[in-house]
């Protein structure tokens, strides 16, 4: 990746992080931890990789994105608004009565959302259906799937992964947001994960592991994954829950945070830092 593209994607990630933080601060609560941990991934997908047309969200030949960890909605909405799917001001309507931006991604409400998610595990199967349908129609587009490491507790995920390998769904790339935490505790304290790349490889997948805050590494892994035919690919992202926002990273229970006075102050500070970073 050239320096210019790297700079562009890092800047885009900062913009997504800033807008996501503003959304949740404005609302006063929200799924901040798992939204922040996928920011760099979203920057790479929406900033470089995905073939999309914000003016035509239903374009049939587009690349599809299924964010199965649907509670990352705030970060996805920030990406969509920054890409021009809807006005940036709409981000402040997150979860307000009658909103088009609900906690969890909803394809019937939000332009640019390709699949409704929220009941964990289900986006695995729906994304595979989308990829298979596109294959049947001989489209050469890709479907991208984002799952959480905690989400992989769900048995349906492993049904879907088995099925995808069997059906050689090689137009699907799955990302595991391995932020090490689920709602209650560390993933390994709830249901030990062991090593995701090994598990996926044992299921017949092409598997990679990269640092999830490194746009270049994520992009390189996607390029490698695309060169592999005959099997689906997974890229396990080594991330931090609350990534890039220290006061969130340092909060243990950061799956969904309620902002009190202290959090509002921290968020204001962080917003200034991110804005300054964008001014450079």
């Amino acid at each position, binding site marked *: 990746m050239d320096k210019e593209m790297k700079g562009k994607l890092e800047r885009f990630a900062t913009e997504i992080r800033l807008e996501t933080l503003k959304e949740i601060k404005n609302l006063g609560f929200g799924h901040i931890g798992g939204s922040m941990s996928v920011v760099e991934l979203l920057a790479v997908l929406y900033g470089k990789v995905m073939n999309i047309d914000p003016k035509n969200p239903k374009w*049939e030949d587009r690349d599809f994105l299924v964010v199965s960890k649907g509670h990352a909605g705030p970060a996805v909405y920030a990406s969509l608004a920054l890409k021009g799917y809807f006005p940036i001001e709409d981000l402040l309507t997150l979860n307000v009565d009658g909103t088009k931006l609900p906690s969890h991604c909803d*394809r*019937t409400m939000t332009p640019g959302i*390709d*699949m*409704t998610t*929220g*009941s964990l595990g*289900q*986006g*695995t*199967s*729906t*994304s*595979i*259906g*989308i*990829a*298979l*349908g*596109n294959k*049947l*129609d001989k489209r050469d587009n890709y479907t991208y799937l984002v799952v959480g490491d905690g989400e992989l507790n769900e*048995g*349906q995920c492993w*049904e*879907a992964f*088995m*099925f995808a390998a*069997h*059906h050689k769904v090689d137009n699907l790339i799955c990302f595991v947001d391995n932020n090490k935490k689920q709602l209650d505790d560390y993933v390994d304290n709830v249901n030990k994960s062991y090593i995701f790349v090994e598990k996926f490889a044992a299921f017949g997948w092409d598997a990679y592991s990269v640092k999830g805050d490194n746009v270049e590494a994520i992009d390189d892994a996607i390029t490698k994954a695309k060169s592999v035919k005959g099997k689906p690919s997974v890229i396990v992202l080594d991330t931090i829950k609350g990534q890039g926002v220290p006061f969130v990273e340092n909060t243990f229970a950061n799956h969904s945070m309620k902002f009190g006075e202290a959090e509002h102050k921290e968020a204001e500070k962080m917003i200034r830092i991110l804005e300054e970073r964008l001014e450079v």
Partner: protein
Amino acid sequence: MTDKIKIAKAHVPEAKEMRKVYSETMIELADKNENIVALDADLTSCIGMGDFIKKYPERMFNCGIQEANMMGVAAGLSAVGKIPFAHTFGPFATRRSFDQVFLSCGYTKSNVRIIGSDPGVTAMYNGGTHMPFEDMALMRVVPEMTVLDPSDSTMLKNLMIQMADIYGNFYVRVLRKSATKIYEEGSKFEIGKAVKIREGKDATIIAQGVVMVPNAIKAAEILAEEGISVRVLDVFTLKPIDTEAITEAAKDTGAIITAENHNVINGLASATAEVIVESDYPVPMGKVGVMDRYGQVGSLDYLIKEYGLTAEDIVAEVKRTIQRK
């Protein structure tokens, strides 16, 4: 009765098994529309999809024993314009994968046809684990879901042809074996409109499905011999239910008896009662169906008797209900 529907001679078994008609119709639909696809959870042979697989191998997705995944894959296929028919046994199509049906298919406003085979007691020797007395109830509570229990293969075929062209989610019960012939071939049905199989003035039997529609006809014949005149409605659409036909029956006959191969809770009895109590004709209502019990193994005859689903059970319930007028 509309002139598009012709009632067949009563008590004659159909020559073809219902699954044969299902699979032949799937091929016909696939021939006409390249978006038709089939999914199954390791029961393709049970529902007779061999010829479909031979002709359209790339359009049959056998998910293996993965009902939850199958419903999600079906929803995903429909998101890119495919028209999926996803089959497994009734309890696994509904109870086992309820959240996937509710959210991945329902809440996403997808376009999936869910086919549940072996309705109620017809699961016979597969027993209580495989015997759906709750499938219709579960599907009825999924918003906007169309819920169908065709009473013979002529109806099944006609409904499948219609479903191929209507956007939305459907649940359809399908018997694998031969049904009793109710309708002459070529009959055309309207989803949401009950069929008046027999006219009557003393009571109305609201019947549904391959077991209870023939038994309702038999019951009406027995009652006729005793001088009791009974209307028989085939309410094959549980949802949206035919409010008009039920209200008219209450008004005209003054007594309603439901007959279903399903738990009386949240199926046809409940749906009919909801219509009646809200109508201007809150008449006495009786119900024949499974009285909040689990299934068990047995022959069809044994199970029909065991769960009180015989023509004689219907006759007795009609008489009890008429006395309450």
